[in-house]
């Protein structure tokens, strides 16, 4: 069984990454009881402050659901921390790279 690779296929994010972005958006909306549809969160807008408007209480709650769902323990001393919450896509990328479940 050979996989056909279309020359027109976009080199951008593979389907699994897009799925994870949607899944994490759904987790955030459910955990924080936000009044937005997960699909309406701009994957590239900042999560913190302006943008989605989350604050540090939210970030702690997100860290909790992320640790439960994917086994990823976030650390503030990691230099990547600021980048991780830079956008939904960056958070999803970090989870994809570090998930243990």
């Amino acid at each position, binding site marked *: 069984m050979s996989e056909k690779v279309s020359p027109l296929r976009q080199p951008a994010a593979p389907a699994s990454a897009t799925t994870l972005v949607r899944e994490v958006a759904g987790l955030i909306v459910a955990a924080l009881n936000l009044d937005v549809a997960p699909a309406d969160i701009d994957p590239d807008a900042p999560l913190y402050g302006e943008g989605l408007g989350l*604050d540090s*209480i939210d970030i*702690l709650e997100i860290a*909790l*659901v992320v640790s439960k769902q994917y086994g990823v323990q976030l*650390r503030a001393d990691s230099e990547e921390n600021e980048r991780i919450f830079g956008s939904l896509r960056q958070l999803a990328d970090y989870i994809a790279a570090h998930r243990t479940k």
Partner: protein
Amino acid sequence: MPILATQFLADLTRVAQVLGGGGHVLNACADRYQFTVGLAASLVSGKVSLLPSTHTPEVIRQLTAFAPDVVCLTDAVDCDIDLPRVPFPGGGAALTANPAPVPAIDTAQLAACVFTSGSTGTPVPHRKTWGRLLACVREEANRLGLSGSSSCTIVATVPPQHMYGLESSVLLALACGHALCAERPFYPADIAGVLAAVPRPRILISTPIHLRALLESGTALPPADLIVSSTAPLTAQLAAEVEQRFNTRLLEIYGSTETGQISARRPTHTPEWRLWPGVTLSVRDGETWAQGGHIEQPTRMCDVLEMTGEETFLLHGRVADLVNIAGKRSSLAYLNHQLNSIPGVLDGAFFHFGDSRASHAGVARVAACVVAPQLDAARVVQELRRRIDPAFLPRPLLLVERLPRTSTGKLPQEALRSLAAAHLQSGGLP
């Protein structure tokens, strides 16, 4: 790396030299050691530390009106507080052959001014003398079993600028000879890591939100010798779980910005809070007032308290106007004032949407209905962000045609909730 008292004394002498000639300091240092050095440096040079609950542009503007000579002591390279800035000097101060003596501070000296939001838009200052702050914290040490000769290490997840953090980390260490951990760990893995790294006996000063996150995260918890919680009551279940997982006592503290700490309890043993000696509660016109002991002046409490004895009471939640989100306190009246001061807002009101809309971790935010035909919701939120702490930004903010005022102009919370629920159900159309 432990920092010894001789280094602390050298550091505070150096910081006192760079604070300038004004009488007030906004101590914005995030590092708990540097905050403590700044506080001590302000004390020895006779300056008052100003501790507002938030640093929004509007609050800073009002702080300048309150104390025109205020400077901002900061350890952040990207500090954007609009005040004359004094950067915390980098590196430790050089030690001299003769160490600086431990300064003696007059108990009557005004040490700090903390602020509550009030209801008229102007923050209300509460003055704290050094002697009363110390008296309060020494009783805290008695209650926590930390007034003996053995020294412990204090790790705290709350900022030193918050009254609870100031008392239970910075002042507890200074007044009773304990060691202080400079870091303020945030994520569960950070809290566990920092706690494990400091010597025992060690205590964790925290809040229900952090403790709940710690337990639920699945992070391995290092042993601790005491856990302290404040800002909101813990559920009995969470309290029992904390004691079990850390295999130690959990004590809760109750107080307010105005009064400082006034009582404590061990929730797994009793729901009753026991007052600090000398502090009494009295009820006048349905309101509970606290006075005596270290309290500067009789103070109306913003919670519903039921006295069960001379020294004991039960806590039945906040009074209707109060907003308490993760230890950040405001009032609906203050938030409404800020909302209605936005150009283009014709009418607007904040309200409690109820616990049914709380987040997964149980944090219930406030919501708002706003009449502002010329503005969109994003613009209103943007304007609010300049004026109030982000914890109080409304979730949701609903633009409506008019508020459900009664014929006398009153605005029942229930009517606002019904309007908002109907609004959300109809998909946001008015």
